[in-house]
Each structure stands twice: as C-alpha cells, then as structure tokens.
C-alpha cells in the first residue's frame, strides 16, 4: 500500500514562534501532488498548501512553507509566526494518477498564547 506517514500525533507551539510538521510518503509514481490540509474543530478541511512533485522549488503561502525532499519522500510544513487561529488538525495528503487522495493520520497542533 502506498502510505502517508505523519509521525507526530501532537505538536505545540508558542504564539509567534515557528513550528514544523513532518510527513513522509511512499509512491511508485514520478508525477504526483502533495497537499497539506488544515481541519479546525468546525470539521471543514481547508487547503493550506500544494506542491507538485515535478517542481524543485518549495511552495510557500504567506506564513506557510514546505520543505519538499523528493528523493527522501519527505514533505514537511513550516508555520512561521504562529497564530492562535492556526490551532487545528493538520493532514498531509498525496494525490497521483488515480486521483484519490491518500491521507496521513494527522497532527494536532496546539498554539499557546
């Protein structure tokens, strides 16, 4: 099975600090996509950031950036200047030619004031 692994069930960060969430994945495809989604208590899955595997440049979206290491099959999410509103469950997901998303188990992020 082609899996996505998030090794940190829970993480915490102080407001305004930086935190990195880890994700590794397995795939036999050369063309695939990686995503980080955020799920607050409202249940709504919100796209945080997307990375195309063929792009060498790491994706960034404001305070969110990724460290994509294709050879290592690693895709970590860095949140800078953490805010209280960043508190949520974060899911790493991989999409490929079969269009289905495979999700990790999630990392629960707590932001302390």
């Amino acid at each position, binding site marked *: 099975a082609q899996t996505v692994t998030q090794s940190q069930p829970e993480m915490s960060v102080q407001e305004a600090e930086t935190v990195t969430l880890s994700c590794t994945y397995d795939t036999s495809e050369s063309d695939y996509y990686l995503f980080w989604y955020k799920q607050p208590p409202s*249940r*709504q*899955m919100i796209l945080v950031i997307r990375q195309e595997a063929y792009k060498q440049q790491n994706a960034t979206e404001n305070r969110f950036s990724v460290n994509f290491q294709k050879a290592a099959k690693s895709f970590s999410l860095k949140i800078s200047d953490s805010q209280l509103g960043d508190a949520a469950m974060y*899911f790493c997901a991989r999409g490929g030619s079969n*269009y*289905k998303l495979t*999700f990790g188990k999630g990392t629960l992020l707590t932001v302390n004031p």
Partner: protein
Amino acid sequence: GAGVSQSPSNKVTEKGKDVELRCDPISGHTALYWYRQSLGQGLEFLIYFQGNSAPDKSGLPSDRFSAERTGGSVSTLTIQRTQQEDSAVYLCASSLGPRQDKETQYFGPGTRLLVL
C-alpha cells in the same frame, strides 16, 4: 463563489435504518469525491465521479453503500441498513477535472453520522 456544501450537518439514526447524505459540489467542478473520516481508520476514499464516466467505487466498504450523481452535479451517498461501525464523518470534495483531476480537491463541511 460558493464552496462545497453538504447536508445534513449531523445525522443520528438507529441501527438498521437507511440514510442519505447529500453533496453539492462547486459550480463548474466535474469531479466529485466522497471520503469517510473515522477515529479508527482516519480518512478513507469511498467513491469518485468524473463527468458522465462510470464512477470508481473501489473504496466503498460494503454493498450497503451506494452513491449516485445526478446531472453531473449533486451527489447522494446512501447507506442501507446502517451499522454502528458506519458512524463517522462523511466528507465530500470536488475538483475541476478531467484534465485537471490531479488538481486540488476542495472539501465540504462534512456530515457527522451517528448510528445508535
């Protein structure tokens, strides 16, 4: 524009009853997906619709589960003879498709199903 909508938001039912969950995708999105989110299994793919093509039902856990998509837009997920293990949050997502079916999937708020 409007995002993916799902109804009902919450559903409580008795074991053995049938339930229908509805999803309205983003206008113009031809691809529609159903996922199930449960404590024990995490997020699991259930079914995928692309335009008028035959759906990919490979993720449906049993023949009690079925889904249809009418007019290439609204989709209904039906669970017959519900069991307690069906209790979960059912998430619907849509994306542009078909050439862009690797593109981002946008999710609805989900339906939380509780089977007593």
